[in-house]
């Protein structure tokens, strides 16, 4: 069965179709691996074994009746941020402990329509605020390549579970890099689609103008297959883009001759690991060797991205998180009157980073500071979008590092929020501009830690991004799954 870890979902579907294995066996394989390895990785908050086996039996039944489909009977891990009917959904927060959603998020509904298998809920930073999973109210997930290091965040549980072989694929969310950064640090493929490409209905909101859902997978082919399933217009999300979805698998294997690849000069910064620089440069050489041309470009407002982001995302978060008031769901702590009940509930229910962001966001929106901070950040955001518009006049995609460094040690940055925020410098501008981008493994540093290459595209150009990523995956042939997790 171990060979499954090296196969694409399309190949595993072949085994299922030929009845060489059943979905129940496949699900059992992953459940066994979770039992064996998740005690050390801590990627799952909760394993839904009963539901998983029931869904697997149902998938086998359908296959027995001659049904087929790209994700039929394939076991997924789900970041604990998607409302899933009847299954506890906490956002890794005490304030939502015990919350059982009465409906399915659109992405969950779409996966259910494909008869996928729900293995369990994956850890994350509380309300997706963080870059390491250390802000989870429940546990810190480990990096499969070095258990003393963080997996990145906020979708750290998703990245660790995928890279550690504890699910076939996972869903994550990306507000400032929360899919791409953990994918990069764990050696997985992670895509943040164009804003509006995937419906956010039923996604627990952090910063609504930046949040986007996407897949974390072990290879680019799986990324394409999952994107095919989850992308598309949804009347339940008013920001959803009413455009048809191409078959993303058709982009894989196409050559990249003549493709123009922009290299932003602002993205080789001081303090960046030499090994990261080297792996990125070697990947650029691969592109050139395959017939693409490299174009020097400038994204001049990059240095303002982190400041802009922390004004906008905290402002939106402070507003979105107002709903946790001890009335409708989750935790309630009694108080002497209703305001006191709100305050005590939120004191007990929220962790430090969430409170920090609510305070910052409330401050930048408060009377007298709105123009100086929130409006100003919105204007700088316009300048950053224009940077990308200009760049895409001379190139088709942009290639950069995902993160300036490889995975850091647990505890190293958790008490220094600003340093933690700066680790997202290369991923944040993409969310501000609403563009699609993907992280693909492109090498290892001297300590054997994975390095990710980020590929950014024009709006709705996910296919071309995957086309280029597929070339890197084939040519760089980066190892997946650490030897320690092979058995």
């Amino acid at each position, binding site marked *: 069965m171990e060979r499954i870890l090296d196969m694409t979902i399309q190949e595993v579907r072949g085994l299922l179709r030929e009845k060489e294995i059943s979905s129940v066996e496949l699900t059992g394989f992953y459940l066994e691996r979770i039992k064996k390895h998740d005690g050390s990785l801590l990627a799952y908050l909760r394993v839904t074994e009963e539901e998983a086996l029931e869904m697997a039996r149902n998938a086998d039944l359908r296959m027995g009746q001659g049904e087929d489909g790209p994700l039929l009977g394939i076991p997924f891990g789900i970041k604990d941020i998607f409302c899933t009917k009847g299954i506890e959904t906490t956002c890794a927060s005490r304030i939502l402990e015990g919350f059982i959603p009465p409906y399915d998020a659109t992405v969950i509904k779409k996966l259910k329509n494909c008869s996928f298998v729900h293995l369990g809920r994956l850890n994350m930073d509380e309300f997706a605020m963080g870059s390491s999973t250390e802000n989870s109210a429940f546990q810190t997930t480990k990096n499969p390549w070095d258990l003393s290091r963080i997996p990145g965040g906020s979708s750290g549980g998703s990245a660790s579970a995928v890279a550690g072989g504890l699910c076939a694929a996972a869903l994550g969310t990306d507000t400032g890099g929360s899919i791409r950064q953990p994918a990069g640090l764990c050696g997985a493929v992670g895509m943040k689609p164009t804003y509006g490409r995937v419906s956010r209905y039923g996604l627990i909101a952090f910063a609504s103008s930046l949040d986007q859902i996407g897949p974390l997978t072990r290879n680019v082919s799986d990324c394409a297959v999952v994107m095919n399933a989850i992308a598309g217009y949804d009347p339940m999300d008013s920001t959803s883009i009413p455009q048809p979805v191409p078959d993303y698998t058709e982009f894989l294997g196409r050559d990249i001759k003549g493709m123009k690849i922009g290299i932003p000069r602002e993205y080789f910064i001081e303090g960046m690991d030499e090994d990261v620089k080297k792996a990125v440069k070697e990947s650029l050489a691969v592109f050139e060797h395959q017939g693409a041309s490299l174009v020097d470009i400038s994204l001049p407002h990059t240095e303002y991205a982190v400041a802009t982001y922390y004004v906008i995302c905290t402002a939106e978060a402070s507003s979105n998180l107002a709903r946790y008031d001890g*009335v409708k769901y989750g935790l309630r702590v009694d108080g002497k009157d209703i305001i006191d009940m709100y305050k005590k509930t939120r004191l007990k229910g929220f962790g430090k980073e969430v409170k920090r962001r609510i305070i910052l966001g409330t401050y930048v929106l408060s009377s007298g500071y709105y123009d100086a901070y929130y409006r100003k950040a919105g204007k700088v955001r316009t300048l950053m979008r224009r940077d990308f518009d200009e760049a895409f006049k001379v190139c088709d995609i942009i290639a950069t590092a995902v993160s300036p460094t490889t995975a850091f040690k647990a505890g190293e940055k958790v008490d220094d929020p600003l340093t933690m925020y700066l680790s997202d410098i290369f991923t944040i501008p993409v969310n501000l501009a609403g563009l699609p981008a993907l992280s693909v493994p492109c090498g290892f540093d001297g300590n054997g830690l994975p390095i990710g290459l980020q590929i950014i595209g024009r709006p709705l150009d996910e296919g071309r991004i995957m086309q280029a990523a597929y070339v890197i995956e084939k040519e760089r042939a980066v190892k997946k799954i650490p030897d320690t997790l092979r058995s």
Partner: protein
Amino acid sequence: MKITKDVVEYVAHLGRLELEPDEVELYTTQLGRILDYVDALNKLDTEGIEPTSHAVPFDSVMREDEVRDSIGIDGSLRNAPERKETFFKVPPIIEVEE
């Protein structure tokens, strides 16, 4: 503006957060640092630039006003910490004098 403990306490009240005394200290220092960093935005001339609130422009989305299935009263109340009949139950909001 200098961030003081009073500012943090006031903003926490606006955000309906109670803070522990050590948290007030911590956030006062950290917010000061973060806002100093954010002040770098003022180096940029943004005169005449329209702010972006959403990366992808879109119009208000309308639909026909038709009755559709919903999660219903029980579905809505199922997660409530306290309920009474078909209502969410909360502490008194308006004091009534007897």
